[in-house]
């Protein structure tokens, strides 16, 4: 599954939510990618950054996504450990509030608007740093 949400709204959000609810377990273990995120699904959102924290154990990018009815969803996208992300070309200044970004990643299993970032494209449409892959995130 790979749903892309436009800046003007979210396409298939309900479907994503339903699918995630079906796949959900009660697990939201800290640091446990396999338990917390579904590596067989991908989610993509496009919106405006309203927050960015780049601290261990995980950085978090907060993205406001405007839906077709004008209401707003707030997604939180978790990075790998910043100490590792620095080696992949990220810094604490990679993203700023107000930036329009596209974030792709693996969604939380519990259906929350929360994901682990695979790739984040900045305002210029270019990926920031080196994207992750399942092999990297899952240790495969």
């Amino acid at each position, binding site marked *: 599954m790979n749903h892309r949400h436009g800046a003007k709204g979210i396409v298939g959000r309900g479907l994503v939510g339903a699918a995630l609810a079906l796949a959900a*377990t*009660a*697990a*939201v*273990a*800290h*640091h*446990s*990618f*396999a*338990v*917390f995120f579904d590596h067989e699904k991908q989610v993509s959102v496009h919106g405006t950054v309203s927050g960015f*924290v780049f*601290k*261990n*154990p*995980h950085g*978090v990018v*907060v993205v406001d996504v405007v839906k077709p009815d004008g209401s707003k969803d707030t997604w*939180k996208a*978790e990075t*790998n*450990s910043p*100490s*590792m992300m*620095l*080696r992949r070309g990220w810094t604490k200044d990679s993203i700023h509030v107000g930036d329009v970004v596209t974030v792709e990643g693996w969604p*939380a299993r519990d259906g*929350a*608007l*929360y994901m682990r970032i695979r790739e984040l494209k900045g305002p210029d449409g270019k990926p920031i740093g080196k994207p992750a892959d399942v*092999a*990297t*995130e*899952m*240790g*495969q």
Partner: protein
Amino acid sequence: MIRRLFGVLAALPLVAAAATPDFSGFWMLERKQIDPDPELAPHVAPNTAVLRDTGAAEFGLMEFGGLKLKPKTLEAAKNWNPKAEMSVSNACRIPSIVYALQGPFPIEIFQGSDILVMRMEYFDMARTFFFNKRFAMPPDAPHTKTGNSIAHWEGDQLVVVTTHLKSATITNNGLDHTDNVKVIERFRLANGGKRLIASQEFEDPEILDNRGVRYISWYKVEGDHVTAYDCDPGIAENYATQ
């Protein structure tokens, strides 16, 4: 003749020194799963489960990779609440070396003749391996997340026995080792010194009917160093508001 003999004798210490591998340097974890190493595996005790959760991969709920949990331990795992792990008080809780060594973070080794220091990027942990048994701690000494490690060489393998570990997670899913866990590690170089391979075996009969082992590998990176790991428990608030 005498001159030649002196030459041979002078070369002996160099030969002896060369027999001990030098693990010094920065090592990045190879995040892929590796099979049991053919040179390390024969040293692992019988009745030992090979855990294939090394690196970023982790087990799901009630999945323990072949470890046989005692009934009381199993019950505790069933009652484990993952959400509790994401509380502010737990988000930066430091694991012991049982979990941390295989975590997806690099290590940096500084090897001397009497001690070897292993810095772990994960939570800024630093381990000291003592080659002198006089640094073995008495039973009533404090337990820590890095424990007390006594090391020796067996050929080209570094063997490390660690005790005095403070209870912490084994698999990050509700299974914790006790303060009495014993960890036996073997390290060796491979690929001409470009790879470091380890087996980390642990036994904890209070909670397990068998033993566990992980095989872990790293690749050498020149010029890199372990960085600070300032853990901010504020991450818990981001989970909590979802």
